[in-house]
């Protein structure tokens, strides 16, 4: 009889609703020795979460204590209604603060970099990426101030004063701007035109906007390639820009922008590398990249990894993971390289609607450890 009663009791226990708790963080030990003076001391991982799920979360790999903490934010900020938000798109540290750009919650969440405790938020519609210069944050947004023609949804860059967390300036750029790179004078903005491509009626954008930083005026648009995404500067002042292509006949590419001539301040496309690139990370002369592109014929994703020497613009290797474990990555979705010990971090977004994985490889490409993350781990930044 007991056989029948216990499931019944279990059922009745499971049957009721209690108070609904926020999701608690999970702590997992990281393999390896505990190094109390490790620098950087840790790394934040921003999980995007699928659209509408409100499951953007922050994980923290604590290198000093050898712990991986999954979903830190609700515990540190229990009173924030509906937690971190929907679809995280960028995470950066500037000064003592941690900034998380939450795309579909239309906000930049500002936290203390050490504790992950909330300081405030800046409401910016459809915000994408964040960069900093001299006390200001610059945030790209897919939709700028409402234009007269509602169909021409031009994007914008918002300037935010990091002291007051107020928007102090806006500049309209081209269509659906993604990453930015900032020099002393200019903001370079990679425009995707993501809302226009694929519609059949309009095309993707193909320009990098050049914004004069003091006046917040767009001074030029440099034609580069279709559907731009990443833009990073190397130590020689060159800009590395990736395009997504149109997902059909035009593949993803990597472009190099440099000064027109040594005396010019104007950047022009000097090289177009026949290398597809979804994401990259530059450390010294090495540009680590991966690419994941859908192959219609094969009916699956084609994934590639590699390192380019930014000085020679040559492919150094097409495998920075050397122990064969790259086959365990379904969809690489984020990359970061430790500036001190050269460890390489690659995230796997799997099917976008289940937990991802963070893989850590040593500088020689051997897998050190893997950790379960939140949904769609994508963006990483180091805490010193």
């Amino acid at each position, binding site marked *: 009889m007991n056989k029948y009663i216990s499931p019944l009791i279990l*059922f009745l226990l*499971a*049957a*009721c*609703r209690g*108070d*609904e*708790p*926020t*999701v608690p963080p999970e702590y997992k030990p990281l393999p390896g020795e505990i190094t109390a003076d490790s620098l950087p001391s840790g790394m934040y991982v921003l999980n995007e979460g*699928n659209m*509408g*799920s*409100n*499951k953007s*979360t922050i994980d923290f790999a604590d290198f000093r204590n050898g712990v991986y903490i999954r*979903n830190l934010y*609700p*515990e540190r900020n*229990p*009173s*924030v*209604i*509906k937690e*971190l*938000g*929907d679809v995280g798109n960028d995470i950066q540290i500037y000064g003592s603060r941690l900034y998380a750009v*939450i795309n579909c*919650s*239309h*906000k930049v969440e500002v936290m203390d970099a050490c504790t992950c405790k909330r300081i405030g938020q800046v409401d910016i*519609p459809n915000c994408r990426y964040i960069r900093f210069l001299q006390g200001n944050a610059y945030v790209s947004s897919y*939709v700028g101030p*409402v234009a007269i023609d*509602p*169909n021409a*949804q031009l994007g914008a860059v918002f300037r935010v004063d990091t002291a007051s967390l107020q928007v102090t300036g806006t500049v309209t750029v081209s269509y659906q701007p993604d990453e930015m790179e900032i020099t002393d004078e200019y903001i370079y903005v990679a425009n995707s035109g993501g*809302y226009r491509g*694929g*519609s*059949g009626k309009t095309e993707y954008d193909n320009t990098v906007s050049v914004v004069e930083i003091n006046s917040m005026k767009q001074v030029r648009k440099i034609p580069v390639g279709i559907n731009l995404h990443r833009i990073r500067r190397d130590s020689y002042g060159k800009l590395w820009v990736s395009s*997504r292509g149109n*997902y059909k006949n035009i593949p993803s590419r990597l472009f190099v922008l440099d000064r027109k001539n040594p005396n010019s301040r104007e950047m022009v496309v000097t090289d177009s590398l026949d290398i597809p690139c*979804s994401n990259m990370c530059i450390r010294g002369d090495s540009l680590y990249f991966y*690419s*994941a*592109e*859908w192959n219609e014929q094969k*009916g699956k*994703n*084609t*994934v590639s990894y590699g390192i380019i020497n930014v000085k020679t613009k040559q492919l150094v290797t097409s495998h920075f993971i050397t122990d064969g474990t790259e086959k365990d990555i379904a969809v690489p979705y984020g990359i970061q390289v430790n500036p001190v010990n050269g460890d390489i971090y690659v995230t796997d*977004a*799997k*099917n*976008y*609607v*289940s*937990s991802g994985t963070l893989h850590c490889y040593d500088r020689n490409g051997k897998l050190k450890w893997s950790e379960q993350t939140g*949904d769609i781990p994508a963006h990483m930044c180091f805490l010193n």
Partner: protein
Amino acid sequence: MPCLFVTAQTKPDSIRQLQEVVVTANRYKEIIPAQILKGDELEKLNSFSVADAIRFFSGVQIKDYGGVGGLKTVNIRSMGTNHMGVFYNGVQLGNAQNGQIDLGKFSLDNIEEIALYNGQKSEIFQSAKEFGSAGSIYLTTRKPKFEKDKTANLKAGLRAGSFDLLNPSLLYEYKISESLNTSFSTEWINASGKYDFRYRRVTPSGNLAYDTTAVRHNGDINAVRTEGSLNGYLPDGMWKVHVYHYDSERGVPGAIVNNVWRNGERLWDKNSFIQGSLQQDFTPEYSVKINLKYASDFTHYINNDDKLIHVDNIYKQKEIYFSWANKYALRPNWDVSMAYDAQWNGLSEYKSVARNTHWLSLATAFTLADRLKIQASLLGIYVNERAGESDSVSLKKELTPALFLSYQPLKKHGLVFRAFYKKSFRMPTFNDLYYTDMGNAYLRPEYAYQYNVGVLYDLNPKNRYFNYFHIGVDAYYNLVKDKIIAYPKGQQFRWTMLNLGEVDIRGIDVTAMAVFRLSGDWLLTGKLQYTYQKAIDITDLKDGYYRHQIPYIPLHSGSAIAMLTRNDWSVNYSFIYVGERYNQQENIISNYTQPWYTGDISFVKALKINGATMKLSAEINNLFGQDYEVVLNYPMPKRNYRFRAVIEL
């Protein structure tokens, strides 16, 4: 009073419709597990739409995005919405675009009966398409019935309540002659859709984290439904023409996420169809049924949110359908049938696609000593498609069998055993195949295999207090193969559709009912329904969710109904329980969704005033005011009210 449920169906005639034929349940008819809600009982349940009523059936899961206008879809035995066929007066409602029928769109105002069949309807004299779904819902509109010396019926109703709901309706039925009548029904549904919802969370240690109440926006609806029918009775047959038009504008209440409390999606729908059917017995052995339908659907979707991509899309769908069904009685206890259906579907504006489908069914029904019943059917389907400029992009041929058995071992006892096997499939929808970037024109159909065994027991005790008892238990094993799932493409929320999934479903459905005459005029009816379902993803051993329960399928769910009536008063209490479940594939804490259970109560009073009948009812829904979500981030309303007055002349 407890009329269970089955009216003899083979031979409709004009006499029978005058005196309601009620076959009590000890003479069993249905081979196939069926659940039916009709008439008075349906009226007393606190249900506004068909979707609300279907919650009381076992084995089904409803996805409800909340409110009067929110999308409500039904999934039977975890096989997915697309495996469910919804039939309106015997003809299937189509949506070639996404395969989903929003049952929230069908109000109960003109619906007389809702029936749910696992597998298919227990009837071989039906169109070929009716053999095609893994499960079927039949919605039947009210049939005109006239009392002696009356040539017209008029019914006017008004419903009002929470969400600023205003819902007047009118029904007029007219007897042109003994063999010809007509009916006209219309209603207007208007609601702001505003309701309070609350999110309260505690920290894992039990302290209050946050507690906030807000108003649900953009859930408004303004809809008009108009229907008319012309019904004719022939010496050995009947014919019917039915016209339907539904015109609505609604807001689409989006997901409530951090920092977003309202959004700007709006939807306009115009659904119209005209369908005709003719049924004729040519000889006592040979009968023919013909159905014809033309349907036109128009959808206009816009997203006006300044913060998001502006979308302004129009979709137009058209459908032409023909069915020819034949039945021949080889012996008094042995029938065979053959049916041929053809259908053309077209989608235009946003994407231009056309599909031709042909169905051919062969079926037989055999009865031995009125105790052993067997039905077998075989369905062949042939699909031919054309998308845009390209030629036939796909040509699909399928053959699916079904076998149903039931056996009553003892003549005098209402104990019946039953079993069935059915293979069925669903075609990829136009969205699956051709949706921008995501569609995959090479998709194959998705299959469902069902194995079911069950037992039911009916008791009609000649007892003063205890009038009726019924229990039915079914256990089943379903396998969904080549399930069409969204598969990630390399970059940024880009997906494609692939035949990749595989789901193993094991379940038990229990239904029970009892009727008691308490004393004098007091009558108590109780109904219980329970579903256990283990539906696990067995696609790939390497997945983190391998053998995990699939999203939104609770292990346990059920409902209970108690109806107490005395003369012209009645009180009805219903309770629905949906157990814990997960909102994504992985069964982990961050995907956990709490159980929900709501109690609804209604009071109904009938009055007679100068020959007119009047019915007044008051409903309280979500009596305990539970704050729950059926779908993640789509909060449901707290306690809400509805009042209704109906007058019949």
